[in-house]
């Protein structure tokens, strides 16, 4: 779940709490048209409704509980996906038809771990002097996933040089793996390290 999604969720929660609280205050002062200060919080009509639908009322309560469990789990697990979607799955390449005709027994497939692809791109990115560290995340589905790159720059590295190198690394990555990211989001972290003193 992205930061924006979390912010929207909490705006909704804040708005809901404010409305409920304001209705309670307005009712206490007798200014809310649909409720009076003499009305009880749990009205007898609600209790009658509950008993009238017995035993379906318990089934409805159970379904409501299931929805709460599902939403709670969904909200909890989504907090570990900062990019909003799941990481790219491993690649599976099946043997092509021509290879099968050449050798009768060939009917295999090759699995390329997504982690391996990510590490390869990270290593290629850090091969340039200007990039001290690179962290890559691929989300979505191959062959056009979304790429998220975080680059820690070396001291005095200029962004124009870095940009050229990143472009070349992505081209090499596409040639080798056949993966061409649909979107590339790059975050650069400039260095603040002190220059090395030479005696």
């Amino acid at each position: 779940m992205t930061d924006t999604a979390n912010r929207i969720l909490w705006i909704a929660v804040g708005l809901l709490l404010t409305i409920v609280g304001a209705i309670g205050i307005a009712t206490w002062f007798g200014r809310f048209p649909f409720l009076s200060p003499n009305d009880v919080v749990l009205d007898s009509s609600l209790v009658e409704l509950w008993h009238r639908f017995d035993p379906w009322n318990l089934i409805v309560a159970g379904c409501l509980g299931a929805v709460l469990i599902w939403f709670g789990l969904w909200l909890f697990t989504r907090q570990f996906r900062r990019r909003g979607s799941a990481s790219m799955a491993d690649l599976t390449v099946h043997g092509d038809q021509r290879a099968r005709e050449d050798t009768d027994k060939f009917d295999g497939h090759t699995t390329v771990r997504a982690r391996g692809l990510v590490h390869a791109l990270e290593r290629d990115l850090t091969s340039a002097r200007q990039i001290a560290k690179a962290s890559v995340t691929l989300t979505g589905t191959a062959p056009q996933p979304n790429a998220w790159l975080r680059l820690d720059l070396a001291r005095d590295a200029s962004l124009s040089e870095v940009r050229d190198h990143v472009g070349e690394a992505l081209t090499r990555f596409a040639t080798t793996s056949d993966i061409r990211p649909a979107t590339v989001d790059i975050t650069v972290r400039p260095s603040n390290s002190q220059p090395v003193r030479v005696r």
Partner: protein
Amino acid sequence: MRTFNRLASLVLGIVLFVAGALLIAEAVALLLHRPPLLVPRDRWYQSLAGTSFGDRFVFAAAIAITVVGVLVLALQLRPWRPVRLKVPPYEGWHVQRHYAERSVVSALNRLSGVSKAKTRLNKRWRVRVRAAAHSTEHDLVAQTVNDQLRQLDAPDHMQVKIRLARLRRVV
């Protein structure tokens, strides 16, 4: 605030999960004519059925809920400092604000005669610099800030505001 929101959402997720599980467990207990597991149904029902909206406890609860709601809204709606700054002509390229500020501060503190530098960058690439230095160092400070941010492809409309304060002499 972003980390706080994430943690709060994690807690909300756990609370909703527990509430759902408890609701199902209580419904099953009621169906099997068993005593309640955690929520005393009769006491809960009687207290709500015997409390009116004019009750002062309801009023206190309504005020507390409103205060929490307004506080949450205020925290979420106030402008947040951006985590990243866009590098305008290049689609998809961003600079992490905090690191950019630190690199400028580091470059300024390396200058002789300049110390205690502080920088604030906003999302429109407006830079505020405060440092302890003589006013004659103004141009040098401006040049350093400019050079440092140009390395990060800061846009041409970048604005730099510099405030220099003299260091107090220790007598």
